[in-house]
């Protein structure tokens, strides 16, 4: 046995003792229960082998096995590697997104995939990982200060570049996830106004669909004037008020334009159904309505594994992908679905907690990014399935069927686990 081998053995022992087993355990739990749900959602009357690759559950099982290989590789690589190569990985990722415009394969109206034989790869699922590395690298550089406009600008550019490439594929759902990095930047010292502005934007956008934007401008004007009159004399926020007001007027004017001219009919319809402007359970609102029926039918304890009746057949389209959570709701009831929600929240909380403990700024920011990406997927996907957000097609991590997302999230998570395992050795 030569020294090189010895080194690997000692390092892997090192990893085994230092990785966060709680996160790994949760990961394993999600992957296994996720696969069982896919199996149940797809399964029809003909009982086929679980390894049947022609069925989605068979394929997913293969993908899970291959992701074990990814985990192994990810854990073997040194933490320094990720920091050093983050820019390279980011550039490759951007190139792979741009390449879609030339080599991409169109699936269901979106050109988000590379087709390699019968296999498709969705680069946007890996771009999140690459962006997390890049932003962590940039923000951890010693002379970067997010109070400075120039640094803010570069940080925003890193985040927005992939999002802007993804939007016209079109895949606005995946692009929306990049808003997660806004929270990361806030954690690293970005002014809270940006977060506020983000919320304001979302609220205003929805309001502007329901009522005429001129009315909103009118109402906000009245409020701001009242506030300006009765405000605390000591407060110096009058200039902020002016900024906000300017922003609202500007935003609403372009929002109106975007809504009418940039969004497609299907997006408009989804928003309008959700906001109650349209009632259409068999048309646009069909997926969501069926999904709520399925979840509602679960009751307290659910119908039991493989016993779901709503989620079988073709009641809920996209059953195994974006709407997988309704199988959980139907077969495992309120107990099962709320347990899942709690466990997933715990999983995110654990990543957040672990990130805060990182001694290296790079690791902390990366971990924080990972947590916020999971948070956004979790929030948007579940909210959509239980009918409190419009239908935005993004997967539920580890649960939704699909190779690219499974691999993307696995790599995302295990890079953090690897970084975390080195935390104790940092002086």
């Amino acid at each position, binding site marked *: 046995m030569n020294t090189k081998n010895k080194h690997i053995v000692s390092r892997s022992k090192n990893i085994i003792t230092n990785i966060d087993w709680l996160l790994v355990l949760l990961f394993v739990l999600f992957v296994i229960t996720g696969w069982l749900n896919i199996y149940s959602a797809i399964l029809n009357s003909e009982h086929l082998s679980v390894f049947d690759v022609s069925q989605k559950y068979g394929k997913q099982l293969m993908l899970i096995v291959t992701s074990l290989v990814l985990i192994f590789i990810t854990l073997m690589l040194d933490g320094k590697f990720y920091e050093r190569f983050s820019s390279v990985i980011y550039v490759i990722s951007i190139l792979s997104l741009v390449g879609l415009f030339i080599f991409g394969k169109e699936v269901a109206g979106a050109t988000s995939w590379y087709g390699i034989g019968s296999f498709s790869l969705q680069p946007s699922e890996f771009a999140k990982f690459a962006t997390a590395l890049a932003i962590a690298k940039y923000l951890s550089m010693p002379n970067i200060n997010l109070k400075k406009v120039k640094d803010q600008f570069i940080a925003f550019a890193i985040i927005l570049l992939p999002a802007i490439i993804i939007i016209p594929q079109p895949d606005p759902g995946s692009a929306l996830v990049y808003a997660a990095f806004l929270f990361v930047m806030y954690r690293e010292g970005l002014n809270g106004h940006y977060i506020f502005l983000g919320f304001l934007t979302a609220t205003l956008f929805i309001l502007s669909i329901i009522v005429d934007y001129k009315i909103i401008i009118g109402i906000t004007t009245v409020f701001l004037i009242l506030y300006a009159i009765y405000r605390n004399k000591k407060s110096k926020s009058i200039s902020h008020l002016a900024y906000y007001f300017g922003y609202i007027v500007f935003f609403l004017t372009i929002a109106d334009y975007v809504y009418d001219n940039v969004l497609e009919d299907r997006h408009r319809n989804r928003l309008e159904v959700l906001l109650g402007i349209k009632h259409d359970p068999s048309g646009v609102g069909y997926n969501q309505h069926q999904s709520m029926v399925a*979840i*509602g039918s679960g009751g307290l304890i659910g119908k039991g594994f493989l016993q779901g009746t709503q989620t079988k057949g073709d009641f809920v389209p996209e059953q195994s992908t974006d709407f997988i959570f309704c199988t959980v709701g139907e077969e495992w009831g309120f107990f099962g679905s709320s347990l899942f929600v709690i466990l997933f*929240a715990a999983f*995110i909380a654990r990543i*957040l907690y672990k990130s805060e403990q990182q001694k290296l700024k790079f690791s902390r920011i990366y971990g924080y990014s990972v947590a916020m990406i999971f*948070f956004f997927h979790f929030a948007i996907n579940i909210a959509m399935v*239980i009918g409190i957000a419009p239908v935005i097609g993004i997967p539920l991590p580890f649960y939704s069927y699909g190779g690219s997302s499974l691999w993307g999230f696995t790599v995302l998570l295990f890079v953090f686990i690897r970084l975390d395992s080195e935390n104790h050795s940092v002086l």
Partner: protein
Amino acid sequence: MDRKFLAFVLLFSLTLTFIVRLFFLQIINDSYKFESEKNARQKIIQYPNRGYVYDRNNVLLVTNQPAYDLMILPRNVKDIDTAEFCRLIDITKESYIKRIKKAKSYSWRKPSIFVRELSKENFAFFQEKMFKFPGFFIQKKSLRKYPINSSPNVLGYVSEVSTWILKHDKTGHYKMGDQIGFAGIEKSYEEELRGRAGVKYFVVDVHNRIQGSYHEGMYDTIPTNGKDITSTIDINLQLLGERLMSNKRGGIVAIDPQSGEILASISAPGYDPNLLVGRKRSRNYSKLLDSVGKPLYDRGLLAQYPPGSPFKVVNALVALQEGVITTESKYTCHHGFHWGSLWVRCHCGQFSKPHDLHSAILRSCNNYFSRTYKASIDHYKTSEEGFKVWSDHVKSFGLGKFLNNDLPTGRKGLVPSVEMYDKQYGKGRWKPTYNISNAIGQGEILVTPIQLANMTAAIANHGYYYTPHIVKKINNIDINNSDFTKKRFTTIDKKHFQPVIDGMVAVFESERGTARASRVPGIILAGKTGTAQNPHGQDHSIFIAFGPVDNPKIAIAVFVENGYWGSRWAAPIATLMIEKYLKGEISRKKLEERIVNGSLLDEYQKQAHSESK
């Protein structure tokens, strides 16, 4: 606040929101639950019984019979013994495969009809073995049944609603598979007859066996049966009319002048209403549609014929009303009416001594009525003015316009207008002699049998009629429709009718009356024969009559297509029917037999032959 905590706070509140929402969806709100239990629940539509139809003497004309559709729900279909299945319901394997394919392409999760209307035997066999065939079930429905083979034109028929109707039905009453009335009473009284379907839910197990009612019937709705209809038709009279019209074409309408109730409405040739029931309907329908006699065409309501001589009666009344003649006015017939080069021939046979009104009617003198028509119009300064007055009088008898009754079809007929002649000859450039045919019911004027019967009723009533209608009672309560109880007066004074009716009585009673051979022993009738020229072939045989004269109970109009002349077919038919209605039976058995056996088929064949040349 420390920046670290924002993410934790957001995560916590999001989780809480999700759990509250899930609690609401899964525990509190169970409106989603009913929808989701679809698979453990079978919805059986309880079709209502469509209302029955009776004749005026409560003889059942239309009833219902059960039928059983074999339904399929593709997503519940498991591996079954196809051979046994096919044997039970009498279909071939190929047909089975085809039907499965069709059902699956229609919907995977919505039931559809697999085999329409199983025979009683197949239904009985299948029902016993049904548990072996998950995904299949029986849906009971109700079809029409006609115990008496008669009156298809009056009764109409029902059929499944078409997709077109489903799309255009604003009330939302109809669902796929519902029945709807087409034609006749079924159509015009659809809303009363149809009732409302109910729904029953059952709990079924995986083998599709019914386990009991779902939630104790909480979601069930009870079907409301349709209302029964009592028609004004006298089925015995109707049957007689149909028999008399055998091997002839034409229309008969009989009306009770004292109420406007339609006693009989016959269109010949007819057909068995049972042909248009159930799954054989569409095949039979197209057969009937292609049939040369056009049995689906209701001649009683739709065929527009020139009224011929019976129309002279109206011309007499108009002339009396306008004062251009009196009952004593006389015109001598010179073998017809001569005006310049115009010669309207006449075969009245009385050329030596002049006609008064009475003899003109009983011998149907063309000259007399041509002169009175011309006089009625020339009575005014211009032809236009005179003609306008004349046509208004004529229209007051319900001619040339819709009767607005409770029958789903009808025709306006035609009473020519001033504008029509202005267009033809130029304004002010025509005279009554240009359209002298109107005097004798030829020319442009057209009427339907029901209009002619209604006109007869108006004469019988000395100047008014009730809108003819086909329904007497709904659920045994008189319809009491003011449209049908209102007297509609003609523009002719009451006093002018008696002399005209006397002439019509003489048509039967006088030695030289044109319908003397058709007298009914013991009853005094009034009538008028007619022979209408017809460009397509032999003249039509026409007759109107009512009786008894002093208290009219029935007014009738008979058209027999290509029946040569009025007294040959139409008069015997009309009087046989009146006799049957008034006396309950026919004394003139020989005449009845002759008419029933008489056939005009040769005539129709000849005509078809000459037309095809």
